[in-house]
């Protein structure tokens, strides 16, 4: 089993590639790996509850850890109470710790 850290910096309306990134995360998890998606910058906009897509919810349901950068959430005016179920507020220190433990890291 490998461990992955995927940084998603783009919002779901920003690029047609973003849904593919979520599929990649879910696929890696399905293949038996440990996977974290770290939402940062506009990437956190995907984590809003009530968005007209359940893409992030499906990633959470797949067993992927989904973290949202607190700084980016504040920049985008998204309070933690507005986050979709299963998305956890995090900070870059947590991402750095995962990077330092040797996870395979991709910036998406």
């Amino acid at each position: 089993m490998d461990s992955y850290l995927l940084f998603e910096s783009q919002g779901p309306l920003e690029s047609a590639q973003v849904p593919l990134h979520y599929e990649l995360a879910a696929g890696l998890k399905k293949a038996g790996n440990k996977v974290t998606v770290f939402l940062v910058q506009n990437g956190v906009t995907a984590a809003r509850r009530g968005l007209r897509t359940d893409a992030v919810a499906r990633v959470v349901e797949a067993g992927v850890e989904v973290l949202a950068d607190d700084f980016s959430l504040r920049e985008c005016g998204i309070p933690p109470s507005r986050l979709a179920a299963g998305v956890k507020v995090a900070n870059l220190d947590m991402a750095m710790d995962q990077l330092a433990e040797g996870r395979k890291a991709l910036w998406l």
Partner: protein
Amino acid sequence: MATKKLTLVLMDAPFENARTVTGLRLLDAAIRRGHEVTVFAYEGAVALTFAKQAPHANAVHGRDAVQEDHPLPKDWIAALMEAAQLNGGRLDWVNCGLCVDERGVGEAIPGARRGSPADLWKAAEASDNTLVIGTR
């Protein structure tokens, strides 16, 4: 957690994208933990350490340069280098020499050095992990 060797690869030019700020925030987190970090800056990112970056006034808002307090990436990076020294870690900042020459930004702040893609390969080989933050 024990200190680690990490390599961070940056590509974005200064004043362009949030990726630069996020990259420097990650660098800050690494330095606060005492990790040894090599940054390999290529393409537009070689201008992040350009010594001649200068604050400017904002005539539209009627503010002079001091009031405008324009943030400069070279100052953030100098502060990170200082923090690394104080924290017992290390920040080795390497600018791709070819990219520097293309852009004419050879005058870098102290602590930033000129290198080549071979330096990136060596740093990545010696690191516990490497993260590439590319331009989109």
